């Protein structure tokens, strides 16, 4: 859908800072999240997990568990279907392993019992005979031809023959003559980088309540980023029909991509089917870290050539990602995003994915992009240092802009990178003085943003209020922004609109809440649904006034005659039209179903000052500013919130968060004590500067904003630390032992 000419109008609701509709429930403890409901007669489910990184399951004996008083069902992988579709099949064996366990924490069996403590005892009574297999957890090791093979026969046709069977994906992007480009460079820097896997770290563990009858009819209540995705996965994994499953998404306690897959819902349904009772499963934090999706781990080589005045002549990147124990395409996005911020004559990125004995990667905010852009922005920064150039000027000189052929193929339309860089340059932060052991870093960030399948129903109620029904779980305030767009379009006050999230039986299919798509795509569908309702209201009024439908216009929440020729009818408000809807033709509603496209890419720039303790390797973030093109910011508070939250997740990735595996292939830090997400005292204020470059693909100019902010912090902090420490850091996280070693040798 094209950018609306109307967008130049003065918005009345969009752009204000209204109070969110779900707020009171959330500050009073009333809001119901995944673990917050109970059902009559419900059982408690619990999952037995592999203690081994890689092993063949020789046998599972559940008889003792089944015999324990209070145990009502025990299930194993044999109780789930084996879908033909590879993606569904992977979900199935990840929910409950079949022949092999592929990582420490892989689910093997599950029980449902009358109490949590009986379930705990029953789990210990299940005897699994494992044949331990050699394991591999490092991506570079996994690519070696003699590496232990995680799964056989999973390579795509693009992978050259002769490589380790762990290599499943190969991709290559770019254009231009690299050799000629590098020949023109005055300085070439080539460096290798490694980054650890990190977890989304949502505070609410996965939780569900499920009920499935022998007739194949079932209900699930769960915290998820997509109830329709849960339905599809459960239907495939249990061999039941989608129409018979009704999935209701609870309030969701954070996701960041991590709740775009299914781990426990099919298991709870299988237990329920077997026991005939509703089954509740709530993951522990330990299970969340061991068995739900972290992001990829990576190993990368970047080579960039630059002239002495700062023009990049050629750039090449090779990315080796591991998405855990299953084939994974995240490297495709990393390879496409790596050089997206630059206008390059010659560029190439090559990507590989290798399987390792780690949990299945699940997308985490801008999946694939943060690590690739970290490596690229680190080399650009080092070139600036070596050549004595201002890093912002160099970014501006080489910045992608409208008409740039992007490093991943398409030619950019209207993008906000240059404006964002200029805003950073003009900001007082960029020229503030620095003290001893302090350094300033900056980085660009990028994300594609998605649209996708979306349904919205908008109902005009008889008292003149409006109900919006949409199908995407509200993860960061989207019910507010959707209500705002409906109010804007209809010309009614914000508080006259209530938006609810439908269960899967109450609205047509919606893609998951991902890729920063909801405010864009659901917003777009809401505006279209409102327009359909307006059209209907105008048509009713035309009948009342006995004039042509075209002679009625909608303005400020009222139907009005289009001009003098239409007669002199007093405007009719939405409430007046709604009140007599039964007399004029029945209930009034608008709806819109679309696979929305034209999401419009988003760029950001982050500035960061750090101080490094030269005696301990401790890094302190002194000052942090985020600049981002948000398109039209529908609710500026929540746009800022996305920018701040994403930045802090990136700060955690840069400094302390990591999956640490022992020699035995077991995860050593499956808890918030040693998986160290940033705490309040680690951080300064996160200042935000929103730029509003309208997205031509949305009627109000909206762009997704959620993902881009996690991209720049990795390099911004690494560049600041490298400058403060006087040496280039090439590994994340820059934990104090690593940094001290780099500084003192």
């Amino acid at each position: 859908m094209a950018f609306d000419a109307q967008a130049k109008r003065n918005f009345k609701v969009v752009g204000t800072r209204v109070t969110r509709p779900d707020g009171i429930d959330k500050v009073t403890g009333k809001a119901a999240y995944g673990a917050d409901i109970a059902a009559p007669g419900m059982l408690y489910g619990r999952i037995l997990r592999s203690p081994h990184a890689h092993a063949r399951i020789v046998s599972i004996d559940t008889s003792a568990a089944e015999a324990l008083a209070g145990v009502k069902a025990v299930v194993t992988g044999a109780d789930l279907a084996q879908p033909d579709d590879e993606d569904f099949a992977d979900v199935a064996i990840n929910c409950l392993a079949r022949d092999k366990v592929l990582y420490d924490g892989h689910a093997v069996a599950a029980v449902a019992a009358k109490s949590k403590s009986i379930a705990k005892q029953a789990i210990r009574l299940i005897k699994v005979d494992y044949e331990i297999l050699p394991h591999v957890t490092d991506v570079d090791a996994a690519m070696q031809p003699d590496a232990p093979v995680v799964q056989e026969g999973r390579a795509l046709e693009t992978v050259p023959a002769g490589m380790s069977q762990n290599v499943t994906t190969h991709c290559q992007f770019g254009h231009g003559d690299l050799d000629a480009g590098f020949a023109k460079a005055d300085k070439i820097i080539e460096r290798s980088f490694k980054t650890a896997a990190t977890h989304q770290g949502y505070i609410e563990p996965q939780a569900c309540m499920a009920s499935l009858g022998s007739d194949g009819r079932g209900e699930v209540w769960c915290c998820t980023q997509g109830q329709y995705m849960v339905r599809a996965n459960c239907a495939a994994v249990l061999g039941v029909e989608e129409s018979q499953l009704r999935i209701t998404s609870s309030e969701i306690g954070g996701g960041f991509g991590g709740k775009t897959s299914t781990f426990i819902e099919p298991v709870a349904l299988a237990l329920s089917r077997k026991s005939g009772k509703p089954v509740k499963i709530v993951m522990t934090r330990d299970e969340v870290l061991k068995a739900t999706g972290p992001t990829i781990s990576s190993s990368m080589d970047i080579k960039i050539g630059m002239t002495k005045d700062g023009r990049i002549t050629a750039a090449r990147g090779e990315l080796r990602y591991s998405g855990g124990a299953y084939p994974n395409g995240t490297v495709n996005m990393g390879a496409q995003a790596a050089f997206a911020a630059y206008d390059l004559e010659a560029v190439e990125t090559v990507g590989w994915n290798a399987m390792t004995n780690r949990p299945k990667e699940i997308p985490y905010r801008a999946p694939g992009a943060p690590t690739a852009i970290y490596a690229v922005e680190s080399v650009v920064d080092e070139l600036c240092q070596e050549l004595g150039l201002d890093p912002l000027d160099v970014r501006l000189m080489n910045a992608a802009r409208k008409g740039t052929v992007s490093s991943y193929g398409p030619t950019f339309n209207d993008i906000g990178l240059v404006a964002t860089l200029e805003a950073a340059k003009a900001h007082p932060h960029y020229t503030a003085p620095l003290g001893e052991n302090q350094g300033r870093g900056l980085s660009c960030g990028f994300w594609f943003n998605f649209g996708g399948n979306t349904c919205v129903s908008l109902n005009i109620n008889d008292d003149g209020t409006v109900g919006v029904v949409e199908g995407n779980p509200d993860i960061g305030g989207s019910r507010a922004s959707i209500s705002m767009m409906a109010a804007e379009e209809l010309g009614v006050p914000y508080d006259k609109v209530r938006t609810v999230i439908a269960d899967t039986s109450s609205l047509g299919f919606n893609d998951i809440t991902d890729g920063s798509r909801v405010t864009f795509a659901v917003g777009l569908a809401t505006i279209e649904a409102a327009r359909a309702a307006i059209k209907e209201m105008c048509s009713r009024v035309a009948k009342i006034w006995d004039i042509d439908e075209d002679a009625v216009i909608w303005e400020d929440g009222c139907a009005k005659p289009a001009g003098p020729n239409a007669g002199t009818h007093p405007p009719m408000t939405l409430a007046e039209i709604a009140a007599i809807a039964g007399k004029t033709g029945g209930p009034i509603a608008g709806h819109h179903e679309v696979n929305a496209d034209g999401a419009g890419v988003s760029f950001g720039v982050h500035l960061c000052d750090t101080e490094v303790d030269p005696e301990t390797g401790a890094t302190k973030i002194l000052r942090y500013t985020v600049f981002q093109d948000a398109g039209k910011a529908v609710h500026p508070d929540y746009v800022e919130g996305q920018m701040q939250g994403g930045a802090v997740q990136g700060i955690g990735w840069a400094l302390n968060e990591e999956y640490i595996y022992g020699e035995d292939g077991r995860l050593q830090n499956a808890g918030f004590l040693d998986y160290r997400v940033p705490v309040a005292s680690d951080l300064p204020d996160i200042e935000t500067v929103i730029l509003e470059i309208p997205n031509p693909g949305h009627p109000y100019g909206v762009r997704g904003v959620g993902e881009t902010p996690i991209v720049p912090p990795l390099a911004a902090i690494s560049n600041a630390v490298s400058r403060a420490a006087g040496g280039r850091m090439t590994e994340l996280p820059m934990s104090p032992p690593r940094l001290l070693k780099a500084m003192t040798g």
Partner: protein
Amino acid sequence: MKTIPVETTINGDSTEFLCHADESLLDVLRDRLGMTGSKEGCGTGDCGACSVMLNGRVVCSCLVLGVETQGAEIETIEGMANGEELHPLQRVFLEEAALQCGVCTPGILVAAKALLEKNPDPTDTEVRYWLAGNLCRCTGYDKIIKAVQTAAAEMRSA
């Protein structure tokens, strides 16, 4: 395992419950009393989502046994508002968008209230250190710190 009767006061109401010796106060609140406002983010005292007041001090209810609370005074998020009148912290958190997903919010509100009772005029640094045991993954803490300060200023002038 036998259940043990326990008498406490929760949000001003005398409350009796039965629990097992190894049940945490959090499990009692959530599973036995239906008070699900306190959340379990970790069960090991690392995230603060289950924060409640126990005899006037803020604790992680996951690190307290239910049986220990015999005779104790407990306050939870459910008792923070006075009927339909929100506590200033609750209202300011809403007004200043200091929450996104909201799952850490009950614990943060309980902990912030405990801070302001002890120290009505904290510095930003004091707020940040006091709340270090309350993880929030959505907001980056910025708006939370500012909201606590706005509420503190309002409460001081009230």
